[in-house]
């Protein structure tokens, strides 16, 4: 058999698809999902088994997620991506999908009953975190990854449940009741999926259990654009499983830094106080020294004055003024008779003399 190039194959497919009369001007009934509104409208049309990518170049057309529509257009084959798109030029809305209709009714009913009020506040530093999830799910992996990065010291208690299909509502309810009051916070997490996949979380029974538990519950179901009844009843709705883990966990690194700052501040205040006391003592010491020095100098002055006043009683001082002292036998002469030998002491010289 002779081979052909990819380009040749793609060209042949394009011809078959775009020039086939049965694929021109067709009308397709289906449910709108994954609607993205940019310059053009991009979304999928799906039924229970299949889906097809759609593009609508008229962005003014009214298209809503989860609504059942009749779409008119033709098929287009993109040579570069090898993808088929249904190019839509007209849309007729048939109705909202049954699931969505039921979701709205349940939401209205539970809202009237007050199920969306009385939110419990989340613990700041949960030490025991309960997770309701499928043990094989990426959602659980994401949650554990975030927790190990942000707050690895918390114990994580996993209660495995099926999160899709028959029996999953009962399974999730049992898990919640089991974990209630055994942990500080409970996360219900599940990765993204179709609206039908996430319909488990629209259950009224689940809503009643979530509302009844005493432990705060965080919902992290699907992607940012997915909303379920579970999101409304839970105490906090997080956009994704990772976001749910972030909501309930403080950052370890921030806490460590805060602790270091508190210790540094305490050290600073203590050091400041001690320094101020030391300065106070130094100042007092200086004042005491100066005061003692002044007192000492005053006393010295007083002593000098006393010393000066005592000088008049000093023998040498008296002798220096021209006086003399007469001594007889080493004693001051008080009386004498003729012929007595006396010693006359003057300032400069002593004289021996005889009384005549």
């Amino acid at each position, binding site marked *: 058999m002779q081979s052909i190039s990819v380009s040749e194959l793609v060209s042949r497919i394009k011809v078959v698809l775009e020039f086939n009369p049965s694929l021109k001007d067709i009308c397709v009934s289906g449910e709108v999902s994954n609607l993205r509104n940019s310059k053009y409208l991009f979304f999928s049309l799906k039924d229970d088994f299949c889906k097809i990518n759609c593009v609508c170049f008229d962005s003014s057309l009214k298209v809503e997620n989860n609504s059942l529509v009749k779409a008119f257009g033709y098929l287009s084959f993109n040579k570069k991506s090898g993808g088929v798109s249904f190019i839509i030029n007209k849309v007729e809305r048939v109705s909202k999908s049954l699931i969505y209709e039921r979701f709205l009714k349940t939401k209205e009913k539970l809202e009237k009953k007050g199920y969306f009020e009385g939110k419990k506040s989340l613990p700041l530093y949960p030490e025991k975190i309960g997770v309701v999830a499928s043990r094989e799910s990426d959602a659980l992996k994401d949650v554990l990854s975030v927790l190990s990065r942000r707050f690895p010291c918390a114990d994580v208690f996993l209660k495995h449940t099926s999160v899709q299909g028959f029996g999953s509502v009962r399974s999730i309810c049992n898990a919640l009741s089991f974990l209630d009051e055994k942990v500080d916070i409970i996360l219900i997490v599940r990765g993204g999926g179709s609206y039908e996949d996430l319909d488990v979380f629209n259950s009224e029974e689940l809503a009643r259990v979530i509302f009844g538990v005493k432990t705060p519950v965080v919902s992290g179901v699907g992607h940012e654009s997915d909303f379920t009844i579970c999101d409304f009843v839970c105490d906090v709705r997080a956009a994704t499983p990772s976001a749910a883990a972030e909501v309930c966990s403080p950052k370890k690194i921030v806490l460590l830094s805060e*602790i270091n700052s508190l*210790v540094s*501040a*305490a050290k600073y205040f*203590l050091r400041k106080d001690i320094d101020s006391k030391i300065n106070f003592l130094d100042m007092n010491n200086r004042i005491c020294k100066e005061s003692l020095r002044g007192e000492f100098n005053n006393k010295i002055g007083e002593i000098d004055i006393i010393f000066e006043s005592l000088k008049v009683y000093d023998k040498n001082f008296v002798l220096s003024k021209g006086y003399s002292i007469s001594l007889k036998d080493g004693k001051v002469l008080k009386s004498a008779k003729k012929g007595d030998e006396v010693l006359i002491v003057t300032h400069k010289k002593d004289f021996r003399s005889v009384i005549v």
Partner: protein
Amino acid sequence: MKFEDMFLELKDLSDKIESVEDLDLKVEYYEKIKDLSLKCKKYLESKKNILEL
């Protein structure tokens, strides 16, 4: 003692040490702050357990 209680007491003591004037009390608070900060850090550095129930 739970981490939350330790951490809140640490913050409380940190506020008190700033305002208290008695040096002896200040030293006592500082010792407690040091002790609590070590306990808090030890808890934060500990490894988690993942238990499937």
